[in-house]
């Protein structure tokens, strides 16, 4: 097998195996397997509206995927993306309330500023994890996960407390924002064109930073050998913190777009598992930026398509996560059973 062809052969093999395993699981749960897949495909790709919803889900996935590529490049397990999205959305709404609702800034400026505030929120949350790792020797898997729960607590506390709707606290979220404080949408459709533009731009920026700058080179040195990077004067701790900060800002931006561009308010668990799904997408793409958009798009189709399952077949929408897990696991197996040549080894030994 040639090195060039093998990623595609392996992807095909994984996809085929994943479909078979998924069908078996669906059948075991007592549902009609092929109808289930058809409902998911129809829900994610079947109409113009479905495509817009899929693109809408692609925005946070692509932003978080890019964020994870930066932190994985520095060998950091940035599991705290969920929390960074949540804090981004909290900071975004805070800015909109302070500068937008009060009329302190004109609406377009307030919206732009709220996205910057969202990036700051994500950045601060990610740096907490980063500092705990570099200066407190607490592994970022534990700090990230812990901070995810803390961020969820903070947002719930705001929704049910300080920012509750007048007269009643409701799990349906805070009072909706007035339309002038929304990120402009594409003709009133369920997606924000600005969100998509920002996500694609962020992805381009990350690709540039990782492949074309000294910072990207230094990160790869840190990833391969921390001690050697230290001896070379590359200050690994500072690079790690910078990678965390950049990743956190991107995840925070995703949270900001969810508030200003999609929900127009803060809702409980606004991060909607996008952080964890993005981790799966990055693992599926083996950390390679080339395959990441495709993996994110596929997972967006699955996520949006699965929303139809409870309505059409009274199945739980968590089937999307099941398919994603099976796919990544079969890819792990395929990568071990058919080791690629030099070209395929780029993603590191997962």
């Amino acid at each position, binding site marked *: 097998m040639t090195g060039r062809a093998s990623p595609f052969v392996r992807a095909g093999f994984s996809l085929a195996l994943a479909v078979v395993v998924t069908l078996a*699981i669906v059948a*075991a*749960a*007592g549902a009609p397997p092929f109808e289930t897949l058809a409902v998911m495909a129809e829900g994610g790709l079947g109409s113009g509206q479905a495509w817009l919803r899929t693109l809408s889900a692609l925005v946070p996935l692509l932003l978080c995927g890019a964020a994870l590529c930066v932190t*994985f490049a520095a*060998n*950091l*397990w940035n*599991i705290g993306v969920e929390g960074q999205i949540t804090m981004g959305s909290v900071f975004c709404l805070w800015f909109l309330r302070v500068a937008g609702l009060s009329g302190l800034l004109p609406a377009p400026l307030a919206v732009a500023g709220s996205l910057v505030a969202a990036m700051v929120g994500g950045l601060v949350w990610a740096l907490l994890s980063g500092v*705990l790792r570099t200066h*407190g*020797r*607490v*592994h970022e*898997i*534990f*700090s990230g*996960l*812990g*901070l995810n*729960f*803390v961020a*969820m*607590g903070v947002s*719930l*506390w705001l929704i*049910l*407390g300080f920012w509750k709707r007048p007269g009643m606290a409701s799990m349906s979220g805070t009072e909706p924002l007035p339309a002038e404080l929304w990120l402009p949408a594409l003709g009133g459709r369920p997606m924000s064109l600005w969100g998509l533009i920002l996500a694609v731009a962020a992805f381009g920026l990350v690709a540039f930073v990782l492949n074309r700058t000294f910072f990207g080179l230094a990160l790869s040195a840190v*990833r391969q050998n*921390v001690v050697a990077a230290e001896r070379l004067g590359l200050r690994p701790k500072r690079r790690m913190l910078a990678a965390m900060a950049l990743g956190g800002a991107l995840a925070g931006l995703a949270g900001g777009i969810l508030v200003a561009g999609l929900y127009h308010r803060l809702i409980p668990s606004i991060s909607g598992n996008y952080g*964890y799904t993005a*981790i*799966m997408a990055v*693992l599926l793409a083996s*950390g390679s930026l080339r395959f990441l958009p495709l993996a994110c798009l596929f997972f967006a189709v699955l996520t949006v398509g699965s929303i139809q399952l409870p309505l059409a077949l*009274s*199945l*739980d929408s*968590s*089937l*999307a*996560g*099941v398919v*994603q*897990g*099976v796919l*990544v*696991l079969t890819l*792990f*197996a395929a*990568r*071990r*059973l058919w080791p690629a040549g030099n070209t395929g080894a780029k993603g*590191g*030994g*997962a």
Partner: protein
Amino acid sequence: MSLEYLTALIAAVLFAAAPLILAALGETISERAGVINLSLDGTILFAAMAAFAAARITGNPWLGLAAGGLAGAGIAAILGVFGLLLGASELAVGFVLTLFCRELAYFMGHTQARQPGPDLGALQLPGLSDIPLIGPALFRQSPVVLISLAAVGLVWFFLMRTRPGLVVRAVGESPLAAGTRGIAVKRVQFLACLAGGALGGLAGGLYSLSVKPGWGHPQGCEGAGWIALAIVIFGGWKPVRVALGALFFASIQVAGIALQDVLPGLSGTLFQIAPFPVMILTLLVVNLRRSAAFREAARRVPLLGRLVPRTAGGAPGAIVGALDKGF
């Protein structure tokens, strides 16, 4: 504080700690052999679903508990095949398994949600339950407390006092040296991983059949696996200290519930997340003592060394630095 209140408090802590103890002990066995099982959180949730479903179908909660243990062992077997046989990164596979098992549990358990089902009930040992304070706390409540306490003794005895336990520890300390001595390293690691997964599965069963009875979305045990993973580090990979760590975390959860009546202004959600900042702080303190800078400071100011709690020994050789390998 009345004696009755104190008794109830102790009983509540022991009850809440039981699944955490089992899960953390399982992870201890696994990590002592050099295998990090990051799938613990997903394992607990999936096993909770499997145990509840099996208990409902058979009508017997004990069979349900066994099914939970089997499910946990099955998930650990997947980790073993990928990590030990195929040589994939344990961290990556473990993490993917956590997410996968969580979603699979919700998907397959859909039909079990919010249904009445059997639970392990309560146990009353005549005579023993009349002892003041510990009697009602230990012998007049759910059997899960006795199961968890027995597990502490059994795991301690197995790891520290038996030959197979010695083999497990030797493999974890230095797989290379153990291999040179003729030990089948991968087989030992696989078996330890299975045993650890089975205990994690039993922990899941304890949740859905007793501590937080029933199944739903969310079940209420989400996040417990991550706390258990942190407890293993807190306890320095030593069974008894690990169990004490689980009691410590359970007492935080119970304190949160108890304080809810005293401080009604603070939302219940804040108490639910309380263990997580405490987990981070605990890891910070545990690692602080091990850092060179702290040792230097403590040498100059001896009081520092006394103020910061002494923690148990270091990690098994095979997993030192394993968390830093990336994916």
